[in-house]
């Protein structure tokens, strides 16, 4: 091969390299662009339509101006409360099992695998399951069954929380240095006590933020609530009745023909996204600042 062809080939390779670099940068810009567009539009639309009424009033009747989403915000809170009663203890418990008792065992691997798979099951399927469990059956002596209710929505969300809470608390517990466990056991503290008040306590900032991430995730879920919590135009905090929820209300308003309801939908979306961004940033802060890793 002559020197000139060699030179040409090396130039070609360099050009190729530059082209790929440019393509990668272009791809990154193309990905950041819709995010920026969504955020900018959301803040622009949401901030201009957010007012005090939004947080204090219930929805106005169809076609009338004004009103707010106070009932939906409270409703979301109630649903999240029910969900966390189910999701947090079971999730943390299984996380403790995975991190403390089941390390390296086949059972733990199977649980971990199933949790990850369960995490990918579409939320609408959870809704159908909660419907089949709670809304569908009519049993005379169990009055909370047989109709749309806040309870069924909370159960659907709670089931969705379990795998997220489980995996994140396992991860956080694994970060706790062994020396701490050994120190506790060395003092003769029973194993359960050392797990609960030493290991879990050390990891608690991480576990709490993991729970918040799960909250943030299910707080925006709409699909499982469509035929469980159903939505409600009025004040209700009863577990036994249909209840309003922020994402449900956003959905109903987004597909409605009224301009004023579109405005409220944007305001609701802004409130939702602010909550979620706060949760995600907090998680990132806790996991990256080494609250657990280096300092403990």
């Amino acid at each position, binding site marked *: 091969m002559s020197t000139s062809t060699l030179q040409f080939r090396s130039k070609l390779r*360099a050009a190729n*390299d530059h082209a*790929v*670099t440019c393509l*990668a*940068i272009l*791809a*990154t810009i193309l*990905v950041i662009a819709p*995010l920026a567009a*969504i955020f900018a539009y959301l803040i622009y639309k949401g901030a201009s339509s957010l007012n005090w009424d939004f947080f204090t009033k219930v929805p106005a009747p169809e076609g009338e101006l004004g009103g707010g989403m106070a009932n939906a915000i409270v409703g979301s809170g109630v649903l999240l409360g029910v969900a966390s009663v189910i999701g947090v203890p*079971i*999730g943390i*418990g*299984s996380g403790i*099992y995975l991190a403390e*008792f089941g390390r390296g065992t086949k059972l733990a691997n*199977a*649980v971990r*695998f199933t*949790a*990850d*798979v*369960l995490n*990918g*099951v*579409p939320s*609408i*399927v959870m*809704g159908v*399951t909660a419907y*089949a469990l709670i809304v*569908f059956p009519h049993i005379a002596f169990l009055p909370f069954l047989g109709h749309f209710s806040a309870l069924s929505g909370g159960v659907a969300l709670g089931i969705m929380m*379990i*795998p997220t809470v489980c995996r994140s608390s396992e991860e956080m517990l*694994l970060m706790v240095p*062994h020396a701490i466990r*050994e120190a506790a*056991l*060395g003092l*003769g503290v*029973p*194993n*359960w006590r050392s*797990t609960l008040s030493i290991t879990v306590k050390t990891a608690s900032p991480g576990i709490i933020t993991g729970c918040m991430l799960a909250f943030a995730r299910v707080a*925006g*879920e*709409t*699909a499982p609530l469509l035929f469980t919590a*159903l939505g409600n135009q009025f004040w209700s905090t009863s577990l036994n009745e249909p209840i309003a929820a922020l*994402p449900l209300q*956003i*959905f109903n308003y*987004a597909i409605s023909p009224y301009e004023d309801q579109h405005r409220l939908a944007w305001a609701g979306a802004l409130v*939702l*996204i602010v909550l*979620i*961004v706060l949760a*995600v940033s907090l998680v*990132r802060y806790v996991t990256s600042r080494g609250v657990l890793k280096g300092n403990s």
Partner: protein
Amino acid sequence: MDTTVPEMRISQPLPESDPGSFPEQVEEALQPAHSEIRRYLLARGNSAVADRLFKLLMLLCALSIFMIVALIAYQLVDKSELNWAQSGIKFFYTAFSDPYTNQPQYWDPVNGHFSALPFVYGTLVSSFLALLLAVPLAIGVAIFLTEMCPGFLRGPLAFLTELLAAIPSIIYGLWAIFVLVPLLRQYVNPALIKTMGWTGLFVDDNPTGLGYVAAGIILAIMILPIISSLTREVMMAVPHSQREAVLALGATRWEMIRTGVLRNARIGIVGAIILGLGRALGETMAVTMVIGNTPEIHKSLLSNGASMASVIANEFAEATSDLHRSALVEIGLALFVVTIIVNAIAQLLVWAVTRGTPRQVH
């Protein structure tokens, strides 16, 4: 880099200490020196029962995850039995043909004709479109983030992609209805019809801007962060020695990425793509808001359609008959089974790559 450190620590097995028998051993060794803590603890008695109870309780929590999967499967099978008895597996591939017009009636709750065909078709088309758009972009982003990005940008960009994954689908749907669909209606769809109309895939029969393309684009935006963050994870798991070896042979950066990184990470990248597919198949709200919700099959990608998840979201609460509801549950069952399989495959592929690597480093 700092995220891999705890992983490495995890992979090493613990020195097994048997907690049950531990206190007794210590008791013998420490017999003479009764410290205050020791006496306090001894006074509380043997902890073997409490320990076992605690372990059992945690085990139950862990097992509940299996029970949930079993419960979902049981409920879906149980509640879709009616439709299964009626049409069996044919539900997914045939349609009732109207004797007068010879037109297929896919979904006719009034007369009780149900076929999942248009929904399966809509789900497949919109997910495939989404993958087509998202995969090259996601891999590009992952390459940029792991191999090219200056250090100060890496953190914020990774955070942004994480954030993108945390935005609820209802907000994507809201944005799609009010920003994306008008954009498609005015500029993109006419351009597609003009330039690609000859393929027969872009027919000017739907002036709304809704349809498969809108659903595909919003799905692509939604699954991008999932694919790119997993691809990034897999690429970071490729040992540095691989990169150094290829560079030492005189390769350019792209050649190094291609031969040293992508080739080693390819199984994991396929896993990431399949995981993205799983998300796209089950995505409900954003698709429901933009796909148009008509139970028909069209060759044109600009036509209205419906997906499996969207028809459940639209009709379940107002299902008119038991058969209607049962048919919807059966669609849900199909969705459940497919996403379980897809996610399991993806998870295994990603694990195959990221799990072994820390040991290779040593």
